[in-house]
């Protein structure tokens, strides 16, 4: 039995995940500014460069940013392995990822092929380092539980998403002859259904039962879900690439049912939580799971009812539900658990009794969490309505997105400033005592 290499140590330094968490919300604000600037045109079609710019501000700038930061933080907890040289690794991921998430939308907006070179270089490098660091850690995991399996599938999906994204970048910059529509479909599916959904699945297996005190996910579900979804996604991609439309629909429908079942099971577990008091982050799970369920059912319906698939709004609705309604909302809620806890954790470890450590509800009170939740819900509803009436509603939707993003950013910055203040005061007490 080998236990060397196993590390149950608690956490990398606070700044390792925090740099990602404090950067991400401002990409929501940038997305809102882009919407305000470009107006209703953004919702004319999912294929416009400006819509692609908006999508990547949200998926790379906000979602991937937090997801990678959170993985660096949680690997020791769920996997028992730490990422080596955490500060350097985090910097090598965070800087290129942030710059890449800024340059890629600029490349789409400017229409200049030359901008895609730095975007591809930055994102290829940042995601490459992240994938290498996290995959090595995952493969050295001493126990292969359901979460480890789901995370491996999610990381594999990120690799496919990145590879296809780089190939599409070559198309945009160099006009390489590629079946660009088909590749974009596959890139999107692996990014949203593979990387994003499976990562949330792997995390939810642990976080939902533990923090909400619900019954666990059923054992067969946890063991089978992620590998089955990854296999279906692979089959679907092959069928899309060879153009086997008939088969593709059935496999797509199976994927949609799978995703709906995850949303359904999670919702069911949340109704059976044994914690008897309210939790302000629970509302974000409800927005997320309802959106995921609605998105999966809508996708399923378009596969079975061809007339529905012809509707121009469907793809945009799916985008709003899966990206903002599901991913942004769930991530937003989880940040409110992770950031104040880590602030508390690092404070008590550094203060060592020199000063009293403020508890989580002092570091981030419930009231701003509940208030920002309303802005998150309003943004989702306005974005959905703007799909149908962009001329009127795109501006209120954009404003709401900007407000909710800024509010999240300010709430998280508030935790960090409180942390600095208590830490500085605690350390000052000590140097005073010494002198």
């Amino acid at each position, binding site marked *: *039995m080998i*236990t*060397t290499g*196993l*590390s*149950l*140590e*608690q956490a990398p330094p606070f700044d390792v995940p925090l740099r990602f968490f404090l950067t991400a919300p401002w990409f929501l604000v940038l997305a809102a500014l882009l919407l305000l600037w470009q107006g209703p045109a953004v919702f004319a079609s999912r294929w416009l460069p400006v819509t692609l710019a908006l999508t990547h501000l949200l998926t790379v700038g906000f979602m991937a940013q937090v997801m990678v930061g959170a993985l660096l933080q949680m690997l020791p*907890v*769920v*996997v*028992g392995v730490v990422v080596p040289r955490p500060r350097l690794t985090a910097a090598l991921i965070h800087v290129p990822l942030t710059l890449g998430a800024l340059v890629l939308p600029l490349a789409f907006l400017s229409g200049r092929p030359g901008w895609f070179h730095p975007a591809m270089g930055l994102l290829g490098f940042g995601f490459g380092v992240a994938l290498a660091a996290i995959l090595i850690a995952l493969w050295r995991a*001493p*126990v292969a*539980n359901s*979460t480890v399996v789901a995370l491996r599938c999610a990381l594999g999906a990120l690799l496919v998403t990145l590879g296809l994204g780089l190939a599409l970048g070559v198309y945009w910059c160099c006009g390489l002859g590629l079946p660009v529509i088909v590749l974009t479909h596959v890139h999107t599916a692996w990014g949203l259904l593979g990387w994003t959904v499976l990562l949330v699945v792997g995390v939810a297996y*642990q976080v939902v039962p*533990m*923090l909400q*005190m619900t019954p666990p996910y059923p054992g067969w579900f946890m063991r089978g879900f992620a590998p089955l979804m990854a296999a279906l996604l692979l089959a679907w991609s092959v069928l899309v690439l060879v153009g086997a439309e008939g088969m593709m629909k059935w496999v797509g429908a199976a994927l949609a049912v799978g995703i709906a079942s995850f949303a359904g099971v999670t919702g069911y577990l949340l109704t059976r939580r*044994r*914690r*008897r*008091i309210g939790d302000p982050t629970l509302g974000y799970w409800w927005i997320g799971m309802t959106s995921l369920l609605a998105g999966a059912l809508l996708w399923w319906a378009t596969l079975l009812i061809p007339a529905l698939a012809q509707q121009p709004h469907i793809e945009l609705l799916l985008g709003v539900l899966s990206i903002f309604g599901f991913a942004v909302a769930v991530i937003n809620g989880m940040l409110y*658990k992770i950031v104040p*806890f880590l602030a*508390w*954790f690092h404070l*008590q470890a550094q203060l060592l009794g020199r000063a009293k450590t403020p*508890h*989580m*509800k*002092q570091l981030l009170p419930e009231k701003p969490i509940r208030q920002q939740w309303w802005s998150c819900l309003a943004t989702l509803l306005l974005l959905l309505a703007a799909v149908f009436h962009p001329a009127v509603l795109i501006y209120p939707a954009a404003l709401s997105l900007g407000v909710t993003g800024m509010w999240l950013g300010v709430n998280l910055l508030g935790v960090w400033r409180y942390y600095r203040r208590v830490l500085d005061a605690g350390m000052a007490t000590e140097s005073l005592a010494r002198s």
Partner: protein
Amino acid sequence: MGAVVDYFAAEHRGCDEFFSAAEEAAQTGDLASCRERFQRFRTAMEQHFRKEEEALFPRFEQASGNPMGPTQVMRLEHQQMQGVLAEMESALTGGDLDEFLGQMETLLILMQQHNIKEEQILYPMCDRVLGVAAAALIETLRSFSEGQPL
């Protein structure tokens, strides 16, 4: 599942129940009931720590030949939880239920990330390392009552 995973994970769920009951009393502002429920929770937590630190961990350390490894981190986390439990106690002494609830929220995450590590990683390892001795250990623990040496 192994004997260690089953027994100790069930203890975690038992502590969760006591936690939730104390939290509920604090939320409704019932200080007397909260004090009583908190004592029950704290006793359950401390008994659980003792079973691990005095019975399970030493056997794991001996069998794996690794006294400074993962069990040391778990002991450290027990101390951190004891620290928060003490803060909760003093909040109750002062009758400050808001402070108490804030400390509970903090303890919940600290406790659950600790439980994840134990249930997902350490307990399965204990089952593998201890083999048949695991079942015997759990038998002893089942008949354990408070105050008895482990």
